[in-house]
C-alpha cells in the first residue's frame, strides 16, 4: 500500500528507511570500536589541509560557493563557454529562439502529418 511498483521495479520507502536506520546503527557500533587514545587539542585533532597551516579566522576558513566544483567547471569549460555565451540576457535573442523553435516544430509537424 505504501510502496510503488512500476511493473518492472519496486520502491518501498518504509523498508528503505528501516534499512537506513539499521546501517546507521551498525556504523555507530563500528565507530564506537575506534581508538579512544587520541589527545585533544594537539595536532591529532586538527583539520588536515594538505599539510598547509590551518587559517585561524573563520572568514578565511569558510569554503565559499566559488571554491566548489571549479575543477569540474574547468573540465567542462568548452561546454560552459558556449552555454554562457548563449544566455546573453538580450530580449531579442529570447524571441529569436522562440521563433526558431516555432519554425522547427512547424516543419516537423507538417512532415509527419
Amino acid at each position: 500500500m505504501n510502496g510503488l511498483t512500476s511493473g518492472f521495479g519496486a520502491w518501498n520507502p518504509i523498508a528503505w528507511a528501516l534499512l537506513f536506520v539499521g546501517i546507521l546503527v551498525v556504523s555507530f557500533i563500528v565507530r564506537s570500536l575506534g581508538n579512544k587514545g587520541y589527545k585533544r587539542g594537539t595536532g591529532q585533532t586538527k583539520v588536515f589541509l594538505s599539510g598547509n597551516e590551518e587559517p585561524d579566522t573563520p572568514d578565511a576558513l569558510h569554503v565559499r560557493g566559488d571554491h566548489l566544483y571549479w575543477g569540474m567547471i574547468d573540465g567542462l569549460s568548452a561546454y560552459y563557454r558556449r552555454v554562457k555565451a548563449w544566455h546573453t540576457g538580450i530580449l531579442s535573442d529570447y524571441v529569436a529562439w522562440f521563433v526558431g523553435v516555432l519554425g522547427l516544430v512547424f516543419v516537423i509537424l507538417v512532415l509527419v502529418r
Partner: protein
Amino acid sequence: MTALTTHAPVLLIAIPLLGAFATPLIGKLGRGARNTLVGLVVLVVAGLAALLAVDVFTAGAPTIYEMGGGTFTFPLSGGQVPVRILFEVDSMSAFMGLITALIALTGAFFSFSYWKDRSGSNLYFSLFLLLTAGIFGMQMTGDMFNFFVFLEITSIAAASLVGFRVWLKQSQEAGFKVMAMYTLSGLFVLLAIGLLYGQYGHLNIAALASRLTGSLTDVIALGLLLTGLAMKAGAVPMHMWAPDAYGEAPAPTSAVLVANSQASLYGLFRVLFTLFGASVSTGAVGWILIVLALLTIFVGVTMALIQNDLKRLVAYGAVSQIGYMMLGVGVGLAVSATKPEFGLVAMQGGIFHMLNDAACVGLLFFASGAVIRASGTRDLNAMGGLAHGMKWTSVCFAIGAVALAGVPPFNGFASKFLIYEAAFKLSPFLAVIAVLSSILLLAVFVKAFQAAFLGPRTTAMAHVTDPSPGMMLPMVALVLVVVVFGLFPGFFVDHIVTPAAKALWLGRDAYINAVLGG
C-alpha cells in the same frame, strides 16, 4: 453542500478575483484587516479545491459547470452543441487545483510575515490573489478562448509581481522581459484559437476535439499552441525568461510563478491529449516533447551549477524540474497509440512530479527568502555559516534540496523513480540523462548548502537568526508534505495521481462525452 460542490469550479475563480480587488480597499483599514481577508480567501479557496477534488475523484467522471447555467442539461443530446462558456473539471484539473491551493495557501501565509515591515504589500497581495485566480481559471476551464483570457490574467499578474518593486533595478529589466515573452506566447495561443475557430466554429474544447480532422491548418494551430505554452512553461531553449522571473520576484511569489508555469504545462497536456489526441501523430509530438524535456533537464541543471546568486540558482533548478514533468508525460504521449503498461507509469511519474516539484521548489524558495531576508544579500559568496543562527531554516532547505534532487526516501525520488523506469523502457538514453541530471542537481544544492549554511560563523553573518514562526510554519507544512508524500507514495499515487494520469491518457472520450453525450 451539494450546491457548494456544484459551484466550486467558478467559486475557485470568483473568490480570489473578488479578494484581489477588495484587498487594496480593505488594506486602507490596516494590515490586520487585510491579512484576515487574504487569509480567509486562501483558506476558503483551499477548502473548495479539496472539496472539488474529493467530488471529482469519487465520481470518476468530469464535472461540467455552465456559466449562467440552467438552460442545458449535460451531457447534451441530439447533436446539440455547447454555446455558453463551460468549466469542465476532470481528475487532472482537480489534481492541478490541489497543487495551486497548496502553493497559494502556504505562499500567502509565508507572505504575511515576509512583508511585515515592507512597503507595497497591499499591491502585492492584490496581485497574488489575481495570479491565483488566473491559475485556477486555466485549470478549470473547458473553453479555449476562456483559457486564453486566464492565460493573460496570469501573465499580467505574474509580470507585475516580478516588477512591482520599481525601486529595484534588475526587477524592472526582468519585468519587461517576462511581460514581453508572456504576451508573445499569449498572442500566438490566441492566433491558434482563431485558426481552430475559423475552421470549426467552436471554442469549446470537447466540441473542438470531437471535430478536429488533422488538416494542415489544425497542424499549424497545434504548432502555435505547443510552442507558445511550452515557452510559458519555461522549456529550453525558450527558458531564458524563467530564471530572470523566478530570481527577481519576491521569494514567496517565485513559488507561485512555478505553479503558473505548471498551469501552462497543464494547458499544453490538455491540448496534446484531449484536443489533438486522435487527429495528429502522437508519437512525433511525444518525441518533440521528450527532446525539449531532455534539453530542459540538462541545460537547467548545468546552468544552476555555475550560479552564485542563491535565488537564481534555485530558479535554474526549478527550470530543470519542469523538464522531468515533460519527460514523463512526453514518454506517455509518445507511446499513447499502443498504450503499453509503462506509458501509464510514465504519466503517473510526470504528473506526480508536478505536485512534488511544487512542494519542494516552494520550500526552497521560502527558505531562500528567509535566508535573503536575514542576511541581506543574495550572493552565495558573501554568505557562510548561516546554520549556526538559522538551524530550522537550514533543515528545511536541506530537506527541500535533497527531495528535489531525488534522494530517497523523499517525495522527489518517488516520482523520479517512476519516470526513470518508464523512460528506460522507451530508451535507456533518456533514463541516463534523467539520472545524471538528478545527480548534478544534488551537486548544485550541495554547493548552495555548503556555501550558505555550513562552515564557521563568518563575521558578516554573525547576527542572523531564524525567521518568525509566521514564516517557519508554512515551511514546516511543506516539509510535512515532502516527508509524508515520500514515505507513503503508494497511497497518493493510487488515490490522486493515477486518476489524473488516466484522465489525460485514457479519458479523452470521457471528456468529450461529458459535454456532447455518447
